[in-house]
């Protein structure tokens, strides 16, 4: 058995991210809901496709696109 796989892991990650946003002022004041969603989306994307296929530039573009909105 692996302790956390697939969706469970993504959900656990999302919970941690939400908690960080609610507890840390720097995230709360600067980042909006869309940015937080994109962070989770980027995590899921990387986890699902694997680091061999997902480059840092792809993640940067994904997050930067939303930050500019």
């Amino acid at each position, binding site marked *: 058995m*692996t*302790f956390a796989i697939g969706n469970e892991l993504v959900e*656990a990650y999302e919970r*941690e991210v939400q908690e960080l946003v609610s507890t840390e002022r720097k995230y709360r004041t600067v980042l909006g809901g869309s*940015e937080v969603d994109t962070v989770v989306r980027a995590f899921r994307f990387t986890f699902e496709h694997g*680091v061999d296929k997902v480059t840092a530039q792809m*993640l*940067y573009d994904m*997050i930067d696109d*939303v930050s500019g909105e």
Partner: protein
Amino acid sequence: MLLERIILKSFGCFDRKDFDLTEGINLIFGPNFSGKSTLVSAIFFALTGKPIIPRVTLSAMTRTGASSGTAGLNFRDQGQRYQLFRSTSGDIQLRLQKNDAWSVLISGKRSAEADLQKIIHSSYHQLSAATFLREGEIFEFLARQPSNRRDILYALLGIDRLTEVRERFIEGRRLAKREEKRVQDHQRSLRVTTVKGHGEEIKRIEDELKALEVEYESQSSKTAEDGDALLIAELSQTRARLQQQINALGQERTSILSGFTNPVHLRESIGKIEAAISEAQGLETEREKVIQQVGSLTSQIRTLDGASEILREFINSNQGHCPTCHQPIHQETIAQIIGEKLSERERCQRDLDAKEAILKKHTDDVNALRELNQRRQLLLNKVEMLERVESRFAELQREFKTVADRLNALHPSAPSQTDTTAEAPEAPPDAVQMAESRRRMKSKIDTLRQRLGTLNQEEAVLTHKLKELQVVQTEADKILRTRLSFELACAGVEKTIETLQQQMLQPAEEELQRWLKRMNLFEFAKVDLKSQHLLPSLKINGVERNLMLLSGSEKMILYLCFKAALSTVLGDTGFFVFDDPTLHLDGERKVLMIAFIQQLADNNHQVIVTSNDTDVRDALTSSHLIETAPD
């Protein structure tokens, strides 16, 4: 999962052999080199496809002389019977028993590994860390670096991929930071060059300019109303100025013509000088000739004097013969020759005097000619200056006439307005003052307009820069959000890893504590698996003692309890395989170890143990005994 049979073919020291296994304790017993560890290795290899001892190659597990070896396992799981074969050349085959016949579920190379893992519910890391104990493992575990143990922990938790994801996020954060620095540098450069705005000054100048222009317009209207008085004043001033310039030119002309009645006289004088110069053509050449003649005559006279002197000395010496040819010489003849020489000298002297007189005249003439040339050049310069002055004079006169004509038209009663020698009419004092005032005002308006132009230009540059700064600020806000998003992403992964560790290690600690209690070991100790990444650490009466600091036997028992605890937390496989767990234990500890094995079996685990110790065999009388001997 219950292991029922080990099937070996060309594997390790065995050619072809099957070993049946049962529920509960299975003791593989035999002397050294009888193949006990080979059986442990075969089970591990069949389940994972990897050698149980790291760095051992698969080919090393093949029986000597064989091209490939095979380890097979019959096992039962959730009411189903399976048969698993794995060859050292990489082939896998998993069969399921249906109606007394085997049907192939998985067949192929190592690509089938993932499908196989789903059926046996165990990963390599889990089996390696929790289910199997290989010989010497404990010392390797203790010797591992904390980072290495952390990697094992992550692999056990299935979160090793999380660390890879975190690496990607860290790279992304690095990109964001680099971009942020670029934007900040741009922002800084714009701030440095930004100067204070000119808005206030522009407004002030515009107001001042507006007021001045209104006033200027008002004066212009007034001027128009005043008729031609102001124009007459302005024209009169111009006329006076022109008159002054004409007078100055007249004086200059007189000065140039000094010594001549008029320009014609000047030009005639130049003509005469040029004629005289022309007549004197060849004078210089003639003079040169005379100089040469004078030189020649002077030289002749000097030679004659010399010869006469020698002859006189010859007579005075009275030698009677020639010192060169030794011929006899007559005094009279020599006296005669001297006489001839003197006569010749007199003639030369006369010629010389005549030539010197001619030379003197020629020298005077040449000097006069040079003076004439200088004079000619001087006069030519005067002519040139005169022409320039006359040209300017004519120009001024034309200008003067124009102004005078306009004045005449405006003020016909004024006498001789076109006469350059006439006095300029007096302009009305008010008009002059007004003209001066307007001139000053116009000059100020021009200056202000120029300043306004410069300020507007600078303001435009400033506005452009401010707009650029706004754009860069937007960019900076955006990149800050991107960078913080990446920081959040990284922090999120770290927190997830931490939480997952907590979720797994907390129950593992509790389970280990229970096992220690069962074994009456370190009963009041507090177990910690987190601080040193899986390395069990005990706090006994406030003093921390980790696994490394325990005795050999304590280490072994604690380590096996730790495996049992891990197995419970990670998902129980239902069996344990321990290779010689009682090695180096004294009698008392052997008993403790056997009790531990017995406890595992009592908890419905199949335990496969190897040993060559008869004490162990004798203690485990109820176990299924498998005696080994190499083929």
